[in-house]
């Protein structure tokens, strides 16, 4: 299991990335997607996603609209705004720099000899 702090920290880039990947998406689908990607190891309380979505919406990174599923259920769809794309670029840089550092540390150093 991935610890809580890391889950919390990664929520934002994950949401931005998933939304950048598709035209638009809704909460349930986003969670399914995360679950698939991490093989279920990154496990959210489903409801916790929404406050984050709302915060991103309030920051002006997302827009939301109410729509309907093919079976007629109400759904709230989110879509990335240009600002969201910019934010994602920033997130990517930050995560990548962390990632690189870790990768470097964990790659066995080539033997001097």
């Amino acid at each position, binding site marked *: 299991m991935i610890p809580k702090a890391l889950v919390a920290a990664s929520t934002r880039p994950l949401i931005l990335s998933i939304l950048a990947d598709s035209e638009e998406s809704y909460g349930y689908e986003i969670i399914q997607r995360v679950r698939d990607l991490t093989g279920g190891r990154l496990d959210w309380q489903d409801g916790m996603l929404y406050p984050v979505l709302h915060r991103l919406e309030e920051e002006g990174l997302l827009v939301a609209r109410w729509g309907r599923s093919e079976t007629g*259920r109400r759904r709230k769809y989110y879509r990335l705004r240009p600002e969201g794309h910019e934010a994602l670029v920033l997130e990517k840089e930050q995560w990548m720099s962390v990632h690189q550092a870790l990768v470097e540390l964990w790659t066995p150093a080539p033997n001097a000899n």
Partner: protein
Amino acid sequence: MDTGTERELKRHVRSWRDAMERRTAFRPADLDELESHLWEEIDRLIATGASPREAVLGASARIGHADVLASEFKKTVVWADPDRPRWHHLTWRFVMWKNHIFVALRTLRKQGVYSAINIGGLGLGLACAFLIFLFVRHELTYDRFHDTGDNLYRMYIEQTTGQFAGNNRANFPAGMAEQIETRGTGIAYTVLYDVRTPYLGVGDRSQRVGTVGFMSPQGLDAFTFPLAQGDPAHALSDPKSIVLSQEAAALLFGTQDPMGQRVAWGDVTELTVTGVFMPLPTKTHLQFEALVPVELMNDVMGPGAMTNFSNWNYNLYAVLESGVDPDAVSASLRPYVIELNDGDEASVDEMIFRFQPVDDIHLNPAVTNGKTRTADPGTIWMFLGVGLLILVIAGVNFTNMATAQALQRAREVGVRKTVGAVRGQLTAQFLLESCLVGLLGTALGLGLAMVALPSFATLVGTNLGSGFDDPTALLMLLGAGLFTGAVAGLYPAVFLASFRPSQVLKGELASRGGSGRIRKGLIVFQFSISIFLIVATLGVYNQLRYMRSMALGFDKEQIIFAPINDPLRDNFETVRQDVLQNARIVSASLAGNLPGRVGTSRGYYWPGQDADDENNRSFTTVLADYDYLQTLGLELIAGRDFSRDRPTDFEDAYILNETAARLIGYAEPGDAVDEPFRAWDKDMGTIIGVVKDFHFQSLHESIEPVVINIKPWISYAAFRVSPGDAAEVVDILTAAWARYAPGYPIDYRFLDEDFDRLYAKDRQLGNLFTFFTILAIVVSCLGLFGLSAFSARRRTKEIGVRKVLGADVKDIVLLLSREFTILVALAFVVAAPAAWFAMDRYLADFAYRTSVSPLLVLSAGLAAFVIAWSTVGWQAFRASRVNPVVSLKVE
């Protein structure tokens, strides 16, 4: 999915949503979104074969626990979000207030005694204020109900020069009405009015039903007194008609229909009942039990009464045409003034016809006709002031208690602040609490006021009606109560909310005396008012007692009198001889005037009169009969009494009081005897005696010159009786009345009681002050009780320690009451001079008065001290009795 499953799912989801809604963190839109999420998961689980119940349970477990979600969602709330619908703020507010109210109620319940004291004190104060408010409103709204409204005026004559300068008399001769109506421009019509209290006879029974008004027929258009029976347009058209109040109709005819019945006016004439009034209003200067046409005066006063120009006895009302300025009408009457003054051009500035709006009559004693009861606006404002003072005392109580309690609640404030309450919220919470107390106090006050209204009405001597029938008045009262609660709660609310958690939780505040000074100041203020009111009460009563005990110069104790009627007047000598057979009747006399009922003035001449008095000099005159001096116990100090043996003693002999004799120029009473003297309309007569000065008016007035003279103008029969059973005497007189004047029941009065009527206003003032004082003291004591209880509780541990160290009960009681003793002493210092000054002003109105003795002021202070001390002392005593083993364990 089949519909049964769908329905079951919906039910489960509904209850899930209900549970979520109980958390305040979620906006409805949030819940919509979460619910849609829930449905997606449910659909998935159902598809895998789960039962509806399993599906909902699984889905809601996945979505997360309500509390956890709520705390996450709360963080995203942004208050200033402009896109959020407005009503949503309100939901939030509502939820917050709901919580506030809940906490407030819990606090009230938890602090039972304090709450009771708070609400009780406020309720008492408000009840008192409500009653005063009703009274003042009643007094301020006289004669507002007439349909002619702004066009209805009473006329009066303003005199600017001469003997009567500054006089505003609202009396007119009947003949002037028509002249004024035709000469003035803008007058629609005038109405004449005068009163009598005649005997009205039905069958063989005559009785007085009260005041009967003589009114011009058009008076029923001018004034709005609706009829229950009869036609207002014609009720007074026939000069021989009478319109009765329902009470008068019941007295005269019992349950019979009065319409068309015959009523005898004494033995003068017969009238026909042409109408019955609806219940008559109390808020009018026109108080009567029946109306008759003014033309009936032709029968009562003799023909020509309606054109008479010398009997200045009538009220004259004018209904002006719409939009006419009364001053313009006044100006249009100036030529008439000149004509009345024999062409004297200067007189237009000396005698002015004026128009007074009828709704101004009740509160304007400056314009008078000597008959209408008016109220002194000063008294009304004083009432209002006292009511306000009591309200303030109650409010102060509340502020004080709440501030004291604040220390107890400091910890609550600390904890709430620590978990994130902000100052505004706390202030709101505490303000809400005081408003709640205000509301409960208002409810209690309204209840108390309603219960007390009848006795209060008796106390102020006014019929206030049911008082609470007016919704606007009720709303105003409610507003006043809430306002008091809010104002009184403002300081403690701000004070409490300002506590800093870091200090409070460490317990530093308990020892802080920050609010102590204000609290003490408020106690001093409260007790100052109480002491002031005690002095006022004692002062008024002292003066009343003085006036009652003062020698009046006549013997009022053993005199009984009754208005007289024609058969008795004609046979009085026989009646007198008859009743004197009985040992209980000592002396009997006819009387035109009695002490307290002197209203006659006549002009007199005597040789050597000053040039100023050349025309004649007006003296108050007592119209008497033989035996008058003896019956009333007037003391003759020179000369002789009237004698039946001397024919000239009838009308031509005069007895003066000392003051009159001195004023005429006789240094010694004896010098005046046998000197010439005459009334303006008689030939020269003689002064036959001088009596010691006596008080024929209330002691508000000083003694004036009085002339006693025998005239046939008699209104009363007076009897001096020997001490003993009053009922026996009444029986004797009733029997005499029945024998000599069958059909005229006796309407007897006791002179002492009748004379006391002159002090009705003073007595009323005394009663009211007592009432207010008791209230003020009770409310103050409630507050003091609460505060001392609080103080004892706060010092429980200290008391325990002191007892362990050897202090006994006496020491502890002294310790706890010292503080309050000092405060009451301080209050005395503040109140004493103010009370002294106020009483001095009040007493200045009496010609014969007590002084405000230092003893009186001191005893008021002592009373306040004793009351305060017994309140505090009890608490202190109780606290001192607690076993230290118990008190030291108190947390």
